[in-house]
């Protein structure tokens, strides 16, 4: 899945930080892609909220047949991570053997290369590493 330079400039900057979208109407924290309406109440007032970067693996799979951008990294873990703030995000969990993760594993966010655009730009985004010491803040 290629990304053009223009698309990169549009999507790139926000991806350097991990954030979610807070609905002003019902206070639900939506995944970062919900910029048009709140998944819970349909409200249209959503604002960026940065996340602390720690969470728990609540589901995962191990990919053996990757898309082109991930060739060479297989097998790799893709998890559904419930962030400590309550929002669920999909992301790869890297630097770990697939057999070393389980539902309930604590993870923390880091920045890695995600893919290359066909115009040669590099897309950095959030991946997660296992970190048993990554406890919720506060």
């Amino acid at each position: 899945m290629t990304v053009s330079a223009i698309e990169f400039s549009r999507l790139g900057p926000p991806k350097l930080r991990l954030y979610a979208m807070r609905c002003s109407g019902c206070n639900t924290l939506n995944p970062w892609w919900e910029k048009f309406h709140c998944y819970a109440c349909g409200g249209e007032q959503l604002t960026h909220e940065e996340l602390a970067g720690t969470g728990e693996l609540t589901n995962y799979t191990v990919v053996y047949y990757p898309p082109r951008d991930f060739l060479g990294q297989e097998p790799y873990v893709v998890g559904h991570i419930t962030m400590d703030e309550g929002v669920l995000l999909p992301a790869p969990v890297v630097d770990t053997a697939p057999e070393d993760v389980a539902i309930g594993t604590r993870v923390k966010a880091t920045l890695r290369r995600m893919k290359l655009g066909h115009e040669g730009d590099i897309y950095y985004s959030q991946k997660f590493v296992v970190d048993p010491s990554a406890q919720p803040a506060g």
Partner: protein
Amino acid sequence: MADILRYGAYLPKHRTPLGELQSFYGRPGRPRARTLATPGLDEDTFTMAYEAATEALAGARAPAALISVTMSAPFGLRKMSATLARALGLAEDTVAYDLGGHPGSLMDALALAAALATGDRPVAVVASDHLVSYEERVCDTLSAGGAAAFVIGASGGFATLGPASRASSEVYDVWRLGTEPEPRYRLEVLFDAYASAAKGALAGLEKLTERPASAYASVAPSQPHPQTLRSLGKLGVSSEQLASTSFVGEIGNLGAASVGVAMAIALDAAEPGQQVLAFGYGAGEGIAQALEVTAAPPAIGAVGRIAGESIPLGTYYRWTRGRQAEPH
């Protein structure tokens, strides 16, 4: 004078067994490093810089500036420091500086940071590298990847950036022409030039501080090759002073990050009242600086990160296709 407030270091977890790599390429002789710290397929000098800087900046005051040092930025014609500042969530008024050129540039960056760090806000310095090397050449160049970061403040740190001395000569030990992707190496020139620069810089530092190299608790040097460290021994540096800070024989040449990772290891073990000698080398220039430890360092356990996890040779080749390079 300025202080080191905090620091961080990052080494990728993968270790390529250099002996097997040498056998694969049919290179003779004993491997000069046991393994090479090999960045993963989704890592590069930017992501490694991010990791080291994140560790250094944890709990630190927002820096007024960020200086990024690398010889192998993943993208050209753009400021890696600016993108790094955004990735770190630094304030919009954070000034971003890119510094590159040679493996000792971290020492230049520390000097600049000391000059910039006035008032309340510190300056962050991040050095990261993953040198280019092709196929069997990596057995000579020991190309590996890593990063180190330091937060420099006007005062209030655990160690002071003391006097520094420089010595340089025009040599061609490691260089690259224009847009050539791979550096050129003359290892025998490197060994001589390193020794000569170290001699000059250490002598100059001794003159400034009235303290010989042997008097430091530890020495944290740039280490492009194990043989370069032997020349320090001839200048009065003992093996005990290099015992923990010498890692090139274990994980390879970290380029611009080499002296920074050595400093992190040295600072971890330092006690108040001790001095650490940092020596950065590149392209014929040696920069020696005294670090005066005044309080217990916020240790990060850097030496524990030297050991990683071995990867099969097939994985190394699948990732690099024989071009140990930034980017893969």
